[in-house]
């Protein structure tokens, strides 16, 4: 494995955001002209409950250095209960990923409401820095295994 200088490393991070809270919060961050790193790519979904844990594995496999799942705060789900299932699924998935050897910072989940633009920005800042510090992900990554 090549030794990388992480200071010039720009991680690619994928975020799955629910349409009603976090995606709205991200839009609000834009409306307020908040600034955050451009390392994030958002996939909009109706609900964090739509996120199949297999999507996370796929993101690492393809080359993302970090993955974030965001939804409404528990109790605020647009569909009443979606994020309660999300919470269980990813509590288990996160532990499994760590057991598989993926560093814990690489996969994270957050509740960010439609009004929490600041929290959205802070989350992106923090997660980007954490992953930048870790360096590029080579674990369970397709390109590295085929090369």
């Amino acid at each position, binding site marked *: 494995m090549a030794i990388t200088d992480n200071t010039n490393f720009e991680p690619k991070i994928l975020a799955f955001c629910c349409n009603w809270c976090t995606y709205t919060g991200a839009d609000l*961050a834009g409306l307020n002209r908040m600034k955050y790193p451009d390392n994030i*790519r958002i996939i909009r*979904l109706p609900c964090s409950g*739509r996120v199949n844990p297999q999507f996370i594995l796929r993101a690492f496999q*393809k080359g993302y250095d970090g993955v974030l799942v965001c939804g409404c705060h528990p109790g605020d789900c647009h569909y009443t209960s*979606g994020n309660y299932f999300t919470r269980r699924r990813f509590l288990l998935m996160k532990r499994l990923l760590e057991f598989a050897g993926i560093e814990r910072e690489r996969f994270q989940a957050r509740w960010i409401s439609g009004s929490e633009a600041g929290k959205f920005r802070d989350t992106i800042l923090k997660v980007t820095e954490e992953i930048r510090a870790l360096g590029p992900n080579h674990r369970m990554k397709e390109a590295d295994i085929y090369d």
Partner: protein
Amino acid sequence: MARAGVFICHCGSNIASVIDVEQVAKSAEQMTGVVYAATNKYACSISGQEMMKQAIIDHQLDRLVIASCTPRMHETTFRKMLGKTSVNPYMLEVANIREQCSWVHTDKEKATAKAIDLVRMSLAKVLKNQPLFTSSIPVCKKCLVIGGGIAGIQAALDIADGGYEVTLVEREPSLGGKMVMLDKTFPTLDCSACISTPKMAEVGAHPRIKLMSSCEVSAVSGYIGNFEVTIKQNPRYVDHDICTGCGLCEEKCPTKLKSSFDQGLGQRKAIYKLFPQAVPAKPVIDAQHCTKLTKDKCGVCAKVCPLGCINFADQESYTTDTFGAIILATGYQLIDWGSHYPEYGGGAYADVISGLQFERLVNASGPTEGKIKRPSDGAQPKSVAIIKCVGSRDVAKAHGYCSRACCMYAAKHAHQTIEKIAGAQVYIFYIDVRTPGKAYEEFYDRTREDGAVYIRGRVSKIYEENGKLICKGEDTLIGKQVTVEVDLVVLETAMEPAANSGQTAALAGVSADKDGWLTEAHPKLRPVETQSAGVFLCGTAQGPKDIPDTVAQASAAAAKVLGLLAKDELETSPMISAVDTSKCSGCRFCEQVCPVKAISMIDIPSIYNGQKVKRTVAQVNSGLCSGCGACSAACRTGCIDLLGFTNKQILEEVDALWQ
């Protein structure tokens, strides 16, 4: 082969000042599946839309990526535009390069690169989009209102006046709810019954309202526009079709009981009307106390009834009807304070009464004909203590919430006492005084000017001594213990959701919060809607509130229902779940996670080992499905999928930047 068109919006300078839109268009043109890419000054403008429509024709586009502002802003606009073209409105993806790119990044090069990435992701998704079609469901133009208090009455009248049929279900033998029990309403002091009974009569006489008293909802199925509701008619033992309400039976009935309407302070008979102006103005028999029904003795009512309306063999019966909308107006009840507050005597002292009991005492048609008398000895109290927040704002003993109406009716009770009893001394124990309403603060001020003494603090103990009630508490403003000696104590007790309101709401798929109040769809912007489409709520079922707020909410719910019933058909979103039955194992995981009970199991014919068999698979009710996709994430095989956000589409989006 797909023929995708990509349009990059400048949004004036909102996007173009940070992102090199021409560069994005140039990159997009190179992407697989793209036959045309262009920039557009304002994609959402009429001219912008015309330009895209023309491009669809010129380049025979079959799908679009529009890179612009957030899809939450203009996805609908662009879908509507596509509705007028040969492209299916759902063959569209919007790449958010404004709110989530140009507005949050400053480095032009990086922002442009990100915008290209976002276009690439949207393109990957749109290449897997399928044309989707909205379908329509017919709307049954009838509304069910559950609860016949002022909220239900107002909603029913508004809808019926709007021209639609309403069925109003009330558990009690009469309409009226709590409002009709009250004496006067704050801050105007107009007589509560005088303003509510005409509305009750109007409901009773309205040609488009079917009033079902002594009834309860026992089952709800179906969905918006088409709810199948089963209503249970509890036995009344009086044939209301024949009865004229002459009152002979009630007069002759020998069994006397405490009246629940008078809060136990007055009496009624075993065959009774809830109160004189009851609607329907016809009596029912209290089966628990009628000696004919309990001991097979008496039967006087049947003997005196000139029309033979009495039917001791009456049974509960069920009817089923279809409704397009449902309003939950199940109201509140007062806390059983005795079990929570043993320090106030727990109900042992006859002269410690609730605010609602006081309303009956002070009411001209009440048991004392409006004279304030002590329940214990009938004497006129010269001094009265009013204690607020009994059960409210008291997490340790009962509820954490504020019951909202008590500050005002406590002031009203003080005012009425001072007005009716010359020289009466009134003490009001309070935590805070909250008067947020038109003319409320002025009413409170007047009460203090009348001479009511406000003491800031909770009462810690009430006990009896020499025929007087001693209230001990702390005046927290001066930090001293206070003891007042009074003849009567009025407890302004907390509102609670009406008994079984949670169960009734659950039948219609509506949940309750931790205190049991029914949950609205959004606390600010959808206050009378619920998570169940077609089910609305109003009044104190949703949370404590006073009469003006209740009535306003009832009319709001009615407006929502009128808007719904005005439609002949409802368009359903096509972005809902669909099952590939050839792969479904029938494991029911999707059913378990569905928040709206849209998934059920069905047996389908299948072939197994050359034999015809029945196999259980999931099916989605398109009227109920709200398109959240929880089922899809729960399905291991992936055979239940969310149209518009399919597994394939999402996987392509994930892969897009790594080809």
